[in-house]
């Protein structure tokens, strides 16, 4: 699941993921709110990986994490969450570490190499 208000980025990241494996199903979401609705409605498919932007209008990445934390534990445990953002601000990197269920912090753009790394680390 890609959560990013920038549809260009979503488009480009979708391509990068597809390149690693065209079979991957991608759920692009344009806001945290939308993503939460998707998750709580328990629609299929349930995402295995969530790539989350921080700076988004309305609910931002951090707020999403807060709401996500309040979700059913079962819903949570099934997805790997990786921050994918423009910001290299150390303060934000530190802030991400305070969330135990955030696995990594990555700066855009998502590349084939990063995807290989993620798949290698979390999905094999």
């Amino acid at each position, binding site marked *: 699941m890609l959560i990013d208000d920038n549809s260009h980025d979503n488009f480009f990241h979708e391509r990068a993921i597809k390149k690693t494996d065209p079979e991957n199903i991608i759920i692009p979401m344009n806001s945290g709110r939308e993503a939460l609705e998707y998750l709580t409605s328990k629609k299929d498919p349930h995402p295995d990986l969530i790539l989350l932007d921080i700076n988004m209008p309305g609910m931002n990445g951090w707020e999403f994490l807060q709401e996500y934390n309040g979700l059913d534990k079962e819903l949570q445990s099934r997805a790997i969450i990786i921050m994918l953002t*423009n910001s290299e601000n150390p303060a934000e990197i530190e802030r991400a570490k305070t969330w135990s269920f955030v696995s990594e912090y990555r700066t855009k*753009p998502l590349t084939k190499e990063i995807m290989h790394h993620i798949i290698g680390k979390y999905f094999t």
Partner: protein
Amino acid sequence: MNEPKNTLSREAFNPDNIEKLEVEIFNRAQAIERMKAELEGMEEEMKQHLTNHRLAFHIENTPLGFIEWDTRLHVKSWSKRAEEIFGWTEKEFVELEKTGFGQVYIEDQPRVFKITQQLITGEIERNKIQHRNYRKDGTVIWCEWFNSVLKDGEGRVNTIMSLVQDITAQKETEEKISKTTRMYAFISQVNQNIIHAKDEETLFRTSCRIAFETGGFKMAWIGILNHDLKSISLSAQSGIPEEVIEQFLSVSYASKGPQTHVLSTGTYYVYNDIANELELTNWKLFAAKHGILSAIVLPIKKSGNIIGTFNLYASELNFFDEEETALLTTVTRDISFAMDIFENAKRHTDSEELVIKNEQRFRALIEKSSDMKTLATEDGELTYGSPSITKALGYSLEEFLHTSVFDIIHPDDIPAFLEIKVDILQTPGKSSYFQQRRRHKNGKWVWCEGSITNMLHEPGVHALVANFTDISEKKIAELAQAESKNLIQTIYAASLDALVIIDEEGIITNWDAKSEVLFGWTETEVAGMKLSATIIPERYRKMHEKGMKHYLKTGEGPILGKTIDISALKKNGDELDVSLSITPSKINGRTHFIGFVRDISEKKIIEQQREFDRNNLHALINNTNDLMWSVDKDFKLITSNQAFDKIIGFMSGGPIEKGSNILEAGFPPDQLKRFKISYDRAFAGEAFTIIEYSATPVEFWSEISFYPIRRGEEVIGTACHSRNITERKKAEINLIQSEKRLNESQAIANLGNWYLNFETNIALWSEEACRIYGFPVDENRHSFDTWVSFIHPEDLDYVMAALKESQKTFSDTILNHRIVLKDGTIKHIYSKSKFELDQNGKSVGLYGIAHDVTERKIQEAALEKQMSLEIKNKELEQFAYIASHDLQEPLRTVANYMQVFEEDYPDVLDDNAKKYLHAVNNAISRMSVLIKSLLDFSRLGTNKKLSCVDCNKLIDDVIADLDTVIKTSRAVIKITDMPKLNLYEIEIRQVFQNLITNAIKFRKKDTRPKIEIRSEKVNEKWKFSVSDNGIGIEPIHFERIFDIFQRLHTNKEYEGSGIGLANCKKIIQMHQGDIWVESIPGEGTTFYFTIPNLTE
């Protein structure tokens, strides 16, 4: 079912249907319009949506919180910043149904309520307001609100939008500054008050008033300690409400209360939160009732002893921080100090009086003494004579003064006297003995003996002082003795005696010329008269006749052949004291009585005078506290007065016998040694005065005079006179000290004072006033024009206008102006002046104070500048961060699509197109690097942490990180021993990394790079250097290489962003050090930087 199509069929043209048709067309047109409108609406909505997005982004990224309220002040939206400011999340705020108004600090609510009502009713559309708010955790913060209203289509307000900023820090700083200013005004006014107040009561009263009015305290009072009652009595106060003042009049202090603490320790006591800190219930209630939240009690001292307390109450919590407390301690110390000055001034006046009394007593002693004293100029002109002159020499003072002393000295004695004079003139203070004849008014020579002292140098005397007595009696006696050897005839001829002869009957037979003069009877008048009828007073007549008969009968006469003193009668009836000697003699067979009569009235008067003088002298000598004694050449005490005996008895535990050795009396050995030296000087013939000081058993100053006693030419002993001048000395010392302390206190306060006399147009300046204006402290008289010449040209008009204005009403003038010193220094002066008016209300002078407030002005300006700089810096950093962050995003989108383009359309791109795309990609990645660098630069030091770092390890780590580059370039790096010191580790690591990377990067082709890293300690700073053998830098570039984005080489030659050295410079500046470069082009470069010993 009628399909819409069918309505357009042929039968539709049936006239019956035309109306339907029209209706239908109308409906359709309307539907189309609706759809159009709907579409437009959608489009509008989309636009709106987009705008909202942008807006939201800005809202999230401004430091201001954004809140939308409905008209009941319930939240419609609540930004993240608002959450950070107030601690409430939007959800919490909405769910708990909180209102904005409920979060306003209670005291500010009325004000906020009013202005909010105006917004809600639409009376005003926007406003800006500062007030306090509660946070979720209950703390209070200051906020600045920018509110504006949104209205619905009918003009009714439906939304209030607010931007809010937490300005607590700013408010605190403002309050701190205003509080500090207030405190300084307080201390400055108290200091002025100290200068003008003349007594404790005024000082206390004014200090309390100033604390209340200027210091901003709620109440201020001074209490004086009453030891016996264990209480404090109110001495002065300001701000205490009248109805409770009675509680303060006499306060018994509790054993654990603040008063006890202050009185017993001598240090202040502070309550910064009375409600929670104070244990005394009644005072706690009092404080609560009168809104007192903090308080301080300070000790007031007098001569080092605590005599009371200065109590200050404030209506703020935590009012007395370290700085305020220090200032207030200074204020109370100044007050205590002022009291010492009052005390000194009083003691000074007392001892002055005593000195005057002593002077008077001394003068009286001189005036009553039979000793003659004269003062004369160097030329011998007499300027003073004691009254005894008249007695002994006959001249009245009018006759005597301003004549020359040489006119009355016997010509034979003048040469010797001139010799003495020449001698003593050579040495100030020297005195010498003389014996000479001086002429009586009646022309007779009077033998005088005494001393003359050169006191020309002595301030207030400026004369030759002579002290002498009439010794003619002694001389006459000597002469008489000598002359007794002469023939009796000669005596008779030269005799002053009158010769009277009577016969047996008592009839006068001989009456000589001297008798005529003596008794006023001529020879003819007395011829044939009985003696008893002429010169014998009535009361002796019987005795006279009886005595004569008795002799004629028995030949015995008890008075015959003797000299008796008796009274005789003059012709005019006056009685005359005479000495009479009667010798019977047979002349021509008949008994005659021969009588020698001498006028002794003059002698008798002198005798009586002598007797009187002796008694008087005795009385004087023994009724003074001055010590008088005389010592012979063997140091044996000859005479002493009672005062001397008493002191000696006190010192040595018993009286000293006349005749015993004075040097064995119980004085401390060093004092005896000094005395012996003085005695020896006197025995050598010198008359002089010394000042003797002894510290034990009490501080004691005495002025001791030594006068040699002579017999003929030989000195046989010395007379000594000691006067206690302790009070005078102490007064002198105290006066000097109190003046010094006043001057010092002015110097401490940078506060000078001056007085301008309008008559002379000259002002007298205090030491500190001179110092402020850059004059030497003794150059203290200056004209008004001189002062004007100091005023800063830009302030001159203002100062003159203010002075002119004040002259109209004689009102006090307060000036804040600058002065320019001769050396160009500019100072800020706060001055206050007051007119001095005479009884008629005419202004006769102007007095005032000048306070050098330059330091304060500079501090204020620096603080202001620093604050604005800090804000600017923050803004700039924020700007750079946001700008570079936001720039990164579109750039990445361009790069992404370039990649997509290349991937998706490889076939349509020819080689040229590929080359172009490649160039675009290069430019993009370069821009990305630049932006990243800018971002890093702006963020440098935002999380800096000072720690003690071992530079050896740090550099090893850097070299390990650069392993690949070093290996590829085959660089050799040599490191000398590095220190351990306090550094911002992450940042300094970057400096080494940049410098080493540069050293490798700018190497010469075909030369193996050699790099040396050194350190050495220079003047408390560590100096580091990184040298290479690279291409070097031209000297003209030494400065600009440290500027941001300055590069010397094209990217093709050497890659780089141009920010590395700018980073280094910023980091070294962060360490308060310097960085510079030295280089020889073609040979190599050395970068140096210094780091001082940093502490937190």
